[in-house]
């Protein structure tokens, strides 16, 4: 379900158009968060955006930095505020109404 707000870290430094947003993977027993540009699909391991996570295969599908599952799989979704807090990233994000 679409959230009534959009959580993002900042504009994408790669494509300079997309928003770097928090996406979570629930495939493992704990919540895995990462930051992904919703335009060019560049992935970073956390909101400091210092470490990029680049998939190793040639599918060009953005994948979870921990388990490698496609970030567009059903087990992944855009983080809500509660999940951002659980990840300890609330101070690093902006929340825009949509």
């Amino acid at each position, binding site marked *: 379900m679409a959230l009534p707000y*959009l959580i*993002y870290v900042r*504009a994408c430094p*790669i*494509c*300079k*158009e*997309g*928003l770097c947003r928090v996406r979570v993977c629930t*495939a493992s027993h704990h919540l895995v968060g990462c930051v992904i540009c*919703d*335009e*060019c*699909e*560049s992935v970073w391991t956390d909101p400091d955006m210092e470490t*990029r996570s*680049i998939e190793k295969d*040639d*599918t*060009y*599908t*953005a994948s979870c930095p921990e388990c490698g599952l496609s970030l*567009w*799989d*059903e*087990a992944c979704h855009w983080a809500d505020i509660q999940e951002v807090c659980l990840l300890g990233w609330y101070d690093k994000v*902006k929340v*825009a*109404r*949509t």
Partner: protein
Amino acid sequence: MPRSQRPSTESMANVLRVLPARWAITIIAVLIAYVLLQPRLNTWFGWQLPSIPAMLGQETPKTKNTPASKQADAKKQADAKTSQTQSSTTEKPKSSSGSFKFGILKSLGRDRYESPAGLVYGPGSEEGHRLQHIERHLQDDPTRPGSHGVFQGTMEQFLIAIDDTYRRARGHAKGTRTRNEEAETIYEAPFDESIGYLGGSSGSGQKNPPLKRMRVVVRGKNLITAFPIP
């Protein structure tokens, strides 16, 4: 489909009625043995013997509710969803040039398409397919934070402009730029006239100024995204 099952059930009852009682009992015994052994034989030997309801066309698909099969089901559902959204892209009007998608894209199979300049459009992105992802740039999204480049034209014109940008930037034509990032290459090229306008919240704050440049993001030959820029 209960109506189509009735004849086979009835015909079996008719057969039993005309057979001598001893034969009927033997047949029933064999059927019971089959019902009991069929799932075990399948498990032990990896056979695919159909169940009696399946033979009569009455079976509803069942799966064990283990987490692994649940995950596989979720994956299948996701794949089905993806292929649904992809087929909506596939159903877009084809031009007079026959099997070419949007008039210029040649099918490479597995839902991948190649442009005349050699860019590949394939599955990926939140939308399920990169063609659907770039389609977002054919209209404005005024509430979106930041900028959102909008291309004014049809999908075919957009694809031609993307190819043009890619080709000219790779040829280092005047006014073009190429930037290499860790995994992607970003190409930019100018156009003589406006190709679109600046949308998104920052665009609407500036009265949607016209845009005369295009940015194209690729990984290898795979198009990731493209949009008009200031």
